[in-house]
């Protein structure tokens, strides 16, 4: 089991750990998931996401062309220091992983899910020329700072970060060392992700804590992203689900939706042209019942029409929330559906996403 550079720091804060993607990660701290969730929405929270992959790619003139084979973005559109959400696509048009890619000096930085990062690196390497270089950085930590007070807190430590716009980044200096900061996140709040050397991680995190940011574990990270309607790989996304089924058509660049030229294009083109038989939707149980992953979805006439992929109690919505896949003809907002929990069917409705309104700085 691997540990991040902040393991002892978490331990001293009273973290409870879980095994996640081969790492011992904090699921919660002393405050517990609900309070951590609320702290993030009301002030600011910091998250150790160093288990995620940070893949740096540099290389030849054909680098962008090669990456376009497996990532359905228009690379010409990505400006220096701009970040984009996208995927690695397999031959069937399924999602190998979802990712954030940022153009940096001399190449790209790609943030990958922890459980997928080694396989992702192999899949990307297959598309590259021999003169391209790639490295999954083990010497870097990754921290997320999320919530309405994030800007004030981070600006006090790293002057200049408040100039960043959402989904943009830049290099800054911290204690004489170069760090990379992007304005992004996974909670539906304004916030930043900070990539810095393992040796600096603890000092930096202590400053965030001193300035009033609270430590937030993976438990609240999940309730926050679910309220924000964001996908979690392995739940809403996998190798058998296309981005179109996942209702993420927007994340495929316009030119690529028209021209294709990436893996799985035939299937994705078909999804775009003819529509999909099942689609990801938000689901709100009418009562207090929580529909967990695997819960079967039925139409009001009793036919099985889908399955829940994530479900929990949303502390800011103050109600249960879920996402799942249902047959497209039932996917209209406010459509009445039934959820089978512990052998009984419970009323629910198809809901617009996000459940909780975002407040990104554009």
């Amino acid at each position: 089991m691997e540990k991040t550079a902040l393991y002892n720091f978490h331990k001293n804060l009273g973290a409870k750990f879980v095994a996640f993607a081969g790492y011992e990660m904090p699921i919660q701290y002393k405050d517990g998931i609900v309070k951590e969730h609320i702290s993030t929405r009301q002030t600011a929270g910091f998250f150790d996401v160093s288990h995620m992959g940070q893949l740096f790619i540099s290389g030849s003139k054909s680098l962008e062309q090669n990456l376009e084979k497996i990532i359905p973005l228009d690379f010409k559109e990505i400006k220096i220091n701009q970040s984009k959400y996208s995927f690695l696509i397999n031959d069937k048009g399924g999602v190998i992983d979802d990712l954030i890619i940022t153009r940096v000096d001399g190449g790209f930085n790609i943030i990958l899910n922890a459980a997928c990062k080694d396989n992702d690196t192999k899949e990307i390497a297959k598309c590259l020329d021999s003169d391209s270089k790639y490295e999954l950085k083990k010497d870097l930590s990754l921290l997320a700072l999320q919530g309405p007070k994030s800007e004030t807190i981070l600006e006090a430590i790293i002057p200049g970060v408040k100039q960043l716009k959402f989904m943009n980044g830049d290099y800054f200096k911290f204690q004489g060392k170069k760090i990379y900061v992007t304005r992004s996140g996974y909670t539906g709040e304004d916030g930043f992700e900070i990539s810095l050397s393992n040796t600096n991680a603890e000092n930096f995190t202590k400053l965030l804590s001193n300035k009033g940011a609270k430590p937030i574990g993976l438990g609240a990270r999940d309730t926050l992203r679910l309220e924000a309607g964001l996908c979690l790989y392995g739940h809403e996304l996998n190798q058998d689900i296309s981005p179109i089924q996942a209702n993420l058509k927007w994340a495929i660049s316009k030119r690529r939706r028209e021209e294709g030229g990436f893996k799985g294009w035939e299937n994705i083109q078909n999804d775009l042209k003819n529509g999909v038989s099942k689609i990801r939707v938000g689901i709100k149980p009418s009562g207090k019942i929580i529909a967990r992953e695997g819960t079967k979805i039925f139409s009001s006439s009793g036919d099985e029409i889908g399955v829940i992929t994530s479900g929990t109690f949303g502390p800011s919505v103050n109600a249960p929330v879920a996402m799942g896949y249902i047959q497209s003809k039932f996917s209209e907002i406010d459509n009445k559906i039934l959820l089978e929990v512990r052998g009984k069917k419970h009323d629910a409705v198809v809901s617009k996403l996000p459940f909780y309104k975002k407040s990104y700085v554009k």
Partner: protein
Amino acid sequence: MSEKKFSKKHEWVSLDGDTATVGITKHATEMLGDIVFVEVPEPGKSVEKDSQAAVVESTKAASDVYSPISGEILEGNKSIVDDPGNVNSDPEGASWFFKIKVKDKSEFDTLMNKADYDKFCAENPS
């Protein structure tokens, strides 16, 4: 009310005549974290010792609550259904789960006392 007795599945029971009150222990709530959903049994339902009788859910997961004693359900605690967070604040007091008309009082004697339960928890950390 009798002294409380405890089960290995982290329920507590107290006895008043042939009426038992059942809840989950403070230790259980600490393991579960924030409780966000509770389902209690309907009056009249008969339950066997160690059978599933109620449900408690945290933000993380759903767990079954077992009855440590056999009998017929008299009442479920509506206040924890309406406000599940109450289970975290007073698990061994006002936030009991259900009351049960006990069939066989000798079952009560097979449960652990407070000292034995604390020892059991210390020896079986989650």
